[in-house]
């Protein structure tokens, strides 16, 4: 699905990613853990195409394409989805406009017919139910005045509508209470299929208890220092990152 090779990136001349290597195959869930400032969010931003990061070395091959050459919207058309750590508020644009425009833009580039209003609304209502969101969210402005938990649920709602092939979830668990964490976690689990992969960035094990990863990687100072299975996340929860750095 995606192959990250020796990826280096910097922001304002400050190197952040210093040689990331990672292989993600179809159907796999990978978790990236690591201390603050290790480059976790930078990795997902670079993969989604945020332009304030400069890639200085390395490559990312996504489904036989050079991912780094694509515009952010082209990445979305190709099946990449980023759930933002801090979802952006857009006062003046109703959520439902964004959702419908996004769904049909992605469908168009996948060779699918445009969803008509009635079909779209039927679909979006189904997904709202899964995310336990009321219909009023459709008519509120994008993320404006949403609580932290509502914003994250809105991100997963978008993911469900856009049906990506590879989802990058950047600290989707941060700022969630126990109930919201369960709803978001189960929302992600519903998306698990043999041909869909997830790269999940998190600080804590608690989301991983719901969304069981196949692989766990520890990112420290811009490099993956250690990889393992779910037991690595459990070890980190007990020992912290310091033990890893010493190892």
């Amino acid at each position, binding site marked *: 699905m995606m192959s990250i090779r020796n990826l280096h990136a910097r922001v304002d001349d400050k190197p952040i990613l210093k040689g990331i290597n990672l292989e993600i195959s179809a159907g796999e869930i990978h978790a990236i853990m690591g201390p603050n400032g290790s480059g976790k969010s930078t990795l997902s931003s670079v993969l989604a*195409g945020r*332009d*304030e990061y400069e890639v200085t070395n390395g490559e990312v091959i996504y489904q036989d394409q050079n991912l780094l050459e694509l515009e952010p*919207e082209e990445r*979305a058309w190709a099946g990449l989805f980023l759930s*933002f750590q801090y979802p952006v508020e857009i006062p003046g644009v109703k959520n439902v*406009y*964004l959702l419908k*425009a996004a769904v049909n833009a992605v469908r168009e580039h996948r060779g699918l017919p445009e969803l008509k209003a009635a079909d779209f609304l039927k679909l979006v209502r189904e997904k709202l139910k899964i995310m336990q969101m009321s219909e009023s969210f459709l008519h509120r402005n994008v993320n404006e005045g949403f609580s932290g938990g509502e914003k994250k649920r809105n991100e997963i709602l978008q993911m469900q509508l856009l049906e990506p092939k590879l989802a990058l979830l950047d600290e989707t668990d941060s700022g969630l209470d126990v109930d919201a964490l369960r709803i978001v976690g189960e929302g992600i689990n519903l998306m698990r299929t043999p041909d869909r992969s997830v790269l999940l960035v998190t600080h804590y094990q608690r989301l991983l208890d719901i969304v069981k990863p196949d692989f766990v990687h520890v990112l420290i100072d811009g490099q993956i220092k250690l990889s393992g299975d779910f037991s690595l996340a459990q070890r980190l929860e007990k020992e912290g990152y310091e033990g890893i750095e010493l190892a």
Partner: protein
Amino acid sequence: MNGLHTLLTKSERYSAKDALQKGLPSKQVESWKYLPSRTLNKTKWVSASHRESAGFVLHGGRFANLPLCDGVNTSTNSSLNSAEIARLANLASAHGFSSAQDALNTDCLLLEVIKLAEVRIDLCRLANDAKEAGFATVVIRVGEGAKLLLIEQFEDAPRSQPNLDSLRILVDVSRNGEMKHLRFQTANDHAQVFTEIDVDISENGHYNLHTIDFGAKLSRTNIEIKLSAEQASTKINGLAVTNGSQYHDTHLAVEHRIGDTQSAMTFRNMVDGKGEATFNGRVLIEKEAQRSATKQSVGNLLLSKTARVNPKPELEIYADDVTASHGCTVGSLNRNELFYLKSRGINETDARAFLQYAFAAKLVELIEDADIRELVESRLLGELKHGELISELKESVNV
């Protein structure tokens, strides 16, 4: 001889001599320094002619088909009271252009909304012909406890040469009275539109203005509001969408003369092409105006490298117990917001249109009259490059 001088007779020129010597709008006068006055000062203006039309209109400096509704009395300037005459004289003395407006005024209408009446008046400002200039004044009395909704619209008939339309609106809101004033300026591409709004508000009176500028080559709106008694309040919302080589200018001055008065102002300027927009918002809180509250928010969105805005919020406070806030931003489209939309598969062009729409939409949503709100919205979508996606979305999913 060019400019407004051409319109004055010899004796008028003599009486307006001071004004003309002060000069018509020029870069030397602070409040006019950004206004491109070349067309105004170089055109050989002629007095405007008047044509027959339906509805309450202003054309060629004359009002026609005066509103005949219950609760409204109309008469001519002979019925003005001494306070109104003094206020008009005061307006005329402000600067060269206002003196010319006074000297060239051809029609003065008095509209009186009687005590406790509730009325709506629709005024259409018709386009003057090529090189024609029209000057008129309307004096509005909103009686005690009366409610007036004034909707001011413009005919946007195409013109190939400059035309000038000037209107002074003098308003007196009595105790417990309320005036809502909605301006939707869509004048033709060559129009020079001048509007002078002077409002005095009494105890527990309210004046709400919603002013929307899309049209005209040049539009200048001067708004002066005096909160003269306790619990008088005003709310002013403005949106100017400036494109091509248009110039939109709003000068606003709110005076809190007495305690327990409130004002709130929200303005948005969206400027593209070689357009230029000026916003000057001055709030004065006098020493006696304790416990007054004012807030001002001005947003400016620049969409091209050649677009220009001149925002100037001013707050002058002499009282020590007031609540005052003001904020002013100037910027281009937010990169973070653009990235968010693009990461959802929305292309750059549509994403930009979305954000431009969003910037202006807040001011459109606040328009209470549903029909006018629809008109403004469709004009806004038409002005946006690639607003089709939003139009389509609005039609399809507004359930």
